[in-house]
């Protein structure tokens, strides 16, 4: 009889432990997204490139002995109807020198639209060496009907980039995020109204 009670107690203990394991796994699931981001940053997976880079001139030494070609790829995604193009298709740069390339967007439609550009770098390993000191990535940008905007990108290819990377492609995918940007649209419309009232 007592062995039965012992058994019940044993089962209760096992179940408790397993529930702890379960809670641990659920915690792990919550940590998955940050773990993944870290994983990408470390491995250069998907050519994920970070946000802005603080540029310290004295620390950066130009490497004039070699050139890296940088391709600029512009795309509009998921039915985004803006026109989106870079000033140049590609340029050759010395690692460690700073360059500016302008990108242009135009909203050909008759309604105000909000866009957001998502960058990606190929090859993935180059992402860690491609530093943007000024960029328009991940930002929500509103364009009035017919408006054209110039968006500068300032970047440095780190001089520590491995010699076997001779070409980097930077791609911007432009998405229509008007639906998720009601506030921006509202304030734009209010601005129009204020302007109209003030006139």
């Amino acid at each position: 009889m007592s062995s039965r009670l012992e058994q019940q107690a044993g089962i209760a203990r096992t179940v408790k432990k397993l529930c702890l394991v379960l809670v641990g796994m659920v915690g792990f699931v919550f940590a998955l997204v940050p773990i993944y981001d870290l994983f990408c940053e470390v491995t250069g997976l998907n050519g994920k490139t970070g946000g802005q880079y603080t540029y310290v001139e004295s620390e950066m030494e130009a490497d004039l002995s070699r050139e890296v070609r940088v391709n600029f790829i512009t795309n509009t995604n998921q039915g985004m109807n803006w026109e989106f193009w870079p000033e140049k298709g590609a340029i050759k740069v010395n690692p460690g020198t700073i360059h500016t390339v302008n990108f242009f967007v135009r909203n050909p439609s008759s309604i105000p639209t909000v866009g957001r550009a998502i960058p990606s770098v190929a090859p993935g390993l180059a992402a860690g060496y491609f530093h943007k000191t000024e960029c328009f990535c991940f930002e929500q940008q509103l364009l009035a009907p017919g408006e054209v905007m110039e968006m500068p990108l300032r970047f440095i290819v780190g001089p520590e980039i491995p010699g076997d990377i001779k070409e980097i492609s930077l791609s911007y995918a432009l998405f229509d995020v008007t639906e998720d940007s009601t506030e921006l649209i509202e304030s734009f419309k209010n601005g129009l109204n204020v302007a109209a009232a003030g006139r």
Partner: protein
Amino acid sequence: MNTLKSISIKGMFVAFLVSVSSMLLADELNLRPGVTEISRSVYDLHNLILLICVVIGVVVYGVMFISMYFHRKSRGHEAAQFDDNHTLEIAWTVIPTLILVGMFIPSYGVLKEIYNTDNAEMTVEVRGYQWKWQYKYVDEDYNNSFSFFSNLATPRAQIKNRQVKTETYLLEVDEPLRIPANRKVKFLVTAEDVIHAWWVPDFGIKRDAVPGIINELWAIVPEPGTYRGQCTELCGKDHGFMPIVVEVLPEREFDLWYQDKVAEKIALDQSTKTQTDTEFLTVSSGG
């Protein structure tokens, strides 16, 4: 009953032999060698691994069939009672490990070669759409960059069996991707909406086209000709109807075609620009 058993065991054995020999003998059942250096190395690698598997298979199944034939109760075989043998167990752990190392090394060599995207002479962006491909030729001077879509050209009537199917059924497009022979071409693969995958079997290259992300691929095709592939990642309703056709042109011919395309594009730009010039006055700058 006894004969039934021996027939069935022999049947299994014959079926196995037939399948093995058919794998080895019939070229048309095997992977295709393709036309690039990479696709040939992949083909050789495939044959090597297949051969190793077949040899292991013959040994393993051979021992098994011998046992199934001789060690039967109906033949009066008495069961031995051993249940371990350390020498054997160590052997069949160590030997496969060595074989695997032997497989890993050449595989890594080919993989490294595939990842070497250096010194490409031209770049084409490949974009998957639901359900077509877009090809953009990336030029240093953005004004010279042009693009076009490549749609399935097979008529609906053929798909719905109202018309006789042609030889290139489902593998034909209205405008193929054109690349020059003998030049290293880099492909930047991405997608507009959902994930697609771009595959040309004869080049031995396949890569997922993921929205928001670009992936690199390359090919040097020595032989001019037409090469066909298909989208290989489920991308919705018409996943089976977005083929890839690559026309490899001799270098001279390609250059002429390219110049024509650029001229066509610049002319088109001019005509649209005159219409929209006034709007350019409202350029604002932003960050």
